[in-house]
């Protein structure tokens, strides 16, 4: 079946070896069991979340091709989904992706100032990763935390009602986490 030939992604090919252990495969099969026979493609987005988490937060072509094989669909069906949804990263990211909400309500509560602060503090711009590979800044659209803004999502956690001081503490704590 045709494979992605986008140079942008091609360079990422084979960077990360594929290593789904028994547990991951079992979880993927369990996800498929949620849908009727022959509708295994429905599990695509949940499975992409899982394999992205296992690959340090991003998806490369090799992984997407394996997901296609696993789900018995063509690779393009995986690529078109992975490029559509904003939670999937198609380039390497830092250990922590700081997903900062940039949408209206958070901006009423000072999000723009905090994005400036974060960029200056880490010396990188939106979309970039610090040279030590620790942090990526990724501005995102509304996270559904509008009453508790400004908000940053890191992994599974929302950090809400942020200000400069709380961001300092957050970064310090993340830096200390082994």
């Amino acid at each position, binding site marked *: 079946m045709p494979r992605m030939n986008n140079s942008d992604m091609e360079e990422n090919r084979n960077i990360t070896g594929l290593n789904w252990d028994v547990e991951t495969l079992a979880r993927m099969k369990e996800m498929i069991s*949620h849908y*009727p026979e022959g*509708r295994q*493609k*429905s*599990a*695509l*987005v*949940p499975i*992409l*979340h899982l394999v992205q988490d296992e690959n340090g937060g991003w998806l490369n072509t090799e992984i997407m091709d394996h997901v296609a094989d696993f*789900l018995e*669909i063509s690779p393009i*069906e995986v690529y*078109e*989904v992975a490029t*559509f*949804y*904003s*939670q*999937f990263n198609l380039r390497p990211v830092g250990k922590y992706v700081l*997903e900062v909400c*940039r*949408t*209206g*309500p958070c*901006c*009423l*509560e000072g999000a*723009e*100032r905090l994005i*400036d602060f974060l960029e200056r503090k880490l010396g990188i711009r939106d979309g970039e990763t610090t040279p030590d590979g620790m942090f990526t800044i990724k501005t*995102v*659209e*509304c*996270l*559904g*935390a*509008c*009453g*508790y*803004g400004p908000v940053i*999502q890191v*992994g*599974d*956690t929302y950090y809400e009602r942020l200000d400069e001081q709380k961001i300092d503490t957050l970064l310090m704590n993340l830096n200390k986490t082994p």
Partner: protein
Amino acid sequence: MTKRILTENIHIPDIGNIQVYRKHGGYQSVEKALGSYSPDQVTDEVKKSGLRGRGGAGFPTGMKWGFMDRSPDKPHYLVCNADESEPGTFKDRFLMEHIPHLLIEGMIVSGFALGCRTSYIYIRGEFKWIIRILQKAIQEAYLQGFLGENILGSGFSHDMYVHSGGGAYICGEETALLESLEGKRGNPRLKPPFPAVKGLYGYPTVVNNVETICAVPWIINHGGAEYAGIGLGKSTGTKLISSCGNINRPGVYEIELGLPVAEFIYSDEWCGGISKGRKLKAVIPGGSSVPILPAHLILETAEGKPRLMTYESLAEGGFETGSMLGSGGFIVFDDTQCIVRNTWNLTRFYHHESCGQCSPCREGTGWMEKILLRLEEGRGKKSDIDLLVNVARHIEGNTICPLGDAAAWPVASAIRHFREEFENHVLNADVHKAGTREDNIEKITAEQPNA
């Protein structure tokens, strides 16, 4: 004291645990519906209640259920829309985080009414911890015999799964949601056929919002007529309002429909007034997609009647002087906020979230974003303002799904009510050219001694 239907038990410690939930009357509606009602009787109670879709459209839920193609020879699906992504809206999250069993209970009763063997809760992928909360609650429900084969010996069997999205606002639109649930890009489908006829995998499907489904247990326990007695006119029952922006008490509040908007904004029971002692400038009352209203029109209609928190009152005056209740995402602006900047910000959101299928939306949202940014940065022309109105008009009504309208209305309404502010960005362009937002506020405030 406002009637509480959805949040009555939400503050009970450990209410997320099924034992605690049951001790406080949880799952009674499942016992009642499956034990003594037919599916049609459940649907009739929901019809009688006047419950309307809480996701934003406000369509009568019972009527939506009535459209379901009930042919026994095919599968039927119930899908809960938990993709809460409309800027300003964070109410469904509140229910799912704190009282997940209320949603599961409502899903079982709704699934019974609709003859569904399987249901899915489609939740936005960012709510990872809520996915775990729901999965745990579903597991508990299986163990207690409220899910699975032959529930409570009724002969009704039902399975329920949580499905994670991937970060796309458009998947809150029900046909995009179904595409996404099938493992595809979230491109909305042309309607008709409606999901009730051809939905998930081409089979009859009902898609309901979290808050809508959470109202069903109370309606079954107390009867549709009693629910219809709460609220005002055709806005029956209670509604969760998630309020945010420049107010003293942002948060999620359950209100009885009919509450005066002024009371909601200024009472300490609700928003607690405008923060930092500032003045109210404008409100977007129903999520970012609905028209923005200036202070005088949100507090009173153009005829001088007090504006109420109902579907009808908020819409009074049409698009000229009214807005919509929408999802209940209530965004409050104080008098230091810049409408042009906010409109640009929201337009960037719609541009980012457009699925790209329809040219008017794909191209129009990007075009509006560019024009708004140059106005905001003091690089605009006076003719840009009418150009924006023109582009918005050509998006509206010309797209497969309502995202086009949702992108056009905020721009059109902002210019309708705050044209002077847009013009001011052209006339006093220098003020807006450089510096941060805070610098600009200081400059603007310095120029307006009364502000």
